[in-house]
């Protein structure tokens, strides 16, 4: 198997709370995997560890042959790992177009001096960014809304804009944090198709956190289940759904009720 993103034995504790313990996961190129678990299980913490928001106390994250842990978030983005956020973290007072263009900017090459003098290189760079931005907006059905402020978008559009912005950084690995949150049922159905087509079109490897089991079980090829920071199951959607510990974590058992 051609491992693209390899997470090994990742752990972090906040004070006495062991938020994530010995988390390991391997994404092969082109994978579409899911990360699920009850609220507070540590899913988003895993994303924050991988993208450098938190520094892992133990463990390694590797993209291809490059070690990512210890790098700053912007360096990890530049290395090729992009993410969306659970609570929308769009640039609310900027237009839809500018949100995407900020992502595109990562691959631009001109400096401040070129900007002030508006050199040919700067103009060419900006034109390329504009084209790429338009292309992304078209893919996510946001072309008509490109001039609006991000804060004025309906919720579903905001989620799609988050994905468009993350893809603008031209990543190899895309981490989606609850892309379906706040979407209505038809939007959720469309989202399944969208995520699949994103993987094809942009040639990215995807790991997603999602509470909507319809979405997860339908599109993910492999699922990791977290509970209290510990991995309790790994497998195909069918295997995970049958796993007794997963059922216990989600529905509770008489034992855990008593706790």
């Amino acid at each position: 198997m051609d491992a693209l993103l390899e997470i090994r034995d990742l752990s972090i504790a906040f004070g006495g709370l062991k938020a994530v313990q010995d988390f390991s996961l391997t994404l092969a190129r082109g994978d579409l995997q899911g990360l699920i678990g009850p609220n507070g299980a540590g899913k988003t913490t895993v994303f924050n560890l991988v993208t450098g928001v938190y520094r892992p106390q133990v463990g390694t994250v590797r993209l291809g042959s490059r070690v990512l842990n210890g790098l700053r978030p912007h360096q990890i983005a530049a290395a090729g790992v992009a993410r969306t956020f659970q609570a929308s973290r769009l640039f609310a007072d900027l237009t839809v177009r500018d949100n995407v263009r900020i992502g595109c900017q990562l691959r631009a090459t001109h400096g401040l001096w070129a900007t002030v003098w508006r050199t040919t290189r700067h103009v060419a760079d900006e034109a390329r960014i504009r084209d790429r931005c338009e292309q992304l907006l078209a893919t996510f059905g946001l072309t008509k809304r490109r001039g609006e402020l991000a804060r004025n978008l309906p919720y579903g559009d905001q989620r799609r804009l988050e994905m468009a912005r993350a893809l603008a950084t031209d990543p190899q690995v895309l981490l989606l944090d609850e892309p379906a949150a706040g979407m209505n049922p038809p939007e959720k159905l469309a989202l399944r198709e969208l995520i699949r087509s994103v993987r094809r079109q942009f040639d990215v490897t995807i790991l997603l956190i999602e509470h909507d089991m319809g979405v997860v079980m339908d599109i993910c090829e492999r699922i990791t289940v977290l509970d209290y920071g510990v991995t309790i199951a790994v497998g195909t959607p069918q295997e995970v759904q049958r796993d007794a510990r997963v059922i216990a974590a989600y529905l509770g058992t008489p034992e855990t009720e008593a706790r």
Partner: protein
Amino acid sequence: MRLGVGTLLRNLAPLVVGVALASILHFWIQPASGAFATKVLVDIGINVILAVSLTLVNGFTGQFSIGHAGFMCVGGYVAAAVTYYGSHRLYGDAFLHGGVLSWTAGQGGVAGPLLAGGDLLFVVACLLGGLAAAVAGYVVGLPSLRLRGDYLAIVTLGFGEIVRVLFQSTQPQLFLAGEIQSQSTWRLGTMLGGALGFTSVPFYSTLFWVYAFVALTLLATYRIKQSGYGRAFLSIREDEVAAEAMGVHTTRLKVRAFVLSSFFAGLAGALFAHSIGSINAGELGFQKSFDVIIMVVLGGMGSISGSTLAAIILTILPEVLRTATEHVNRYLPESYALPDLRMIIYSLALIVMMIVRPQGLFGLHEIWDFRKKARRHEGT
């Protein structure tokens, strides 16, 4: 990199227009308007540079700096020292040695070349003043821009005070040509007048030079705002965590915005020193920083045209108010005379603004954005 003549022209066209406007102000408006109006116009230009440069930091990157006068001070002293002592070294005195562009009509003979050696000295001094302020900005910004919000504000406030104290404790200024000649250049750099301020600076800041630098400032900041850099600055202000995740090197960009902003503040300080013929750190304290902040807040955090407009209004307003109070006071018995209304009106304007329109007159937008929006609404 290919750079054709056509591209070069297009790139510099706005600057050419700016310089042309500055020339018109200098050659036609200034002789007709009289000394008082000229002084106000010069002040407007300097305040526009200050407000627009502060908007780079407080508006674009959303950091809150309240030490802008400190950078102005650094630039002002450095530039003043360069022209004053430089002039002594080159010409043996500290009079104007510029061409027509540096002469204010009414000060005597206007005949002479368009540009002369003194102009070069002055421009170099302004740029050196800007660079010195930029270096100060780097030194202050590098460690403190890791801090957020209030902490940065406190650090910049402290910086402003430190600068004031440092300049006030320099050696007395030298006035005798012989003494100046006998000192080394480095020693002269420490003789900045102390608490008395640095005086006898030649009056190079004519409308032409002030507005040429205004044009340069506006062009640079506007182009930055329109580019990837501007968007990256704004992304920091919007959401630092998300900006990092999008690959924006937030610390580096914050420092760059700070350094750029300091550069232009230093430039404004240089123009200021050469417009009133002196510079005194005691007068460029927290109050001056606050005046500039008011301009940025009223104009719109992040709006270049808004800050410009606010700078214009808030420079003219005190003059208008002063004339108005003088008029009214003439008809009032002395014990009922109105006090200086400036600060009262400022405070009221700020309070009303914070309640009605906390993002400032124009928010992030430029004045012409609104016209575009209005047209779009008519269209649909």
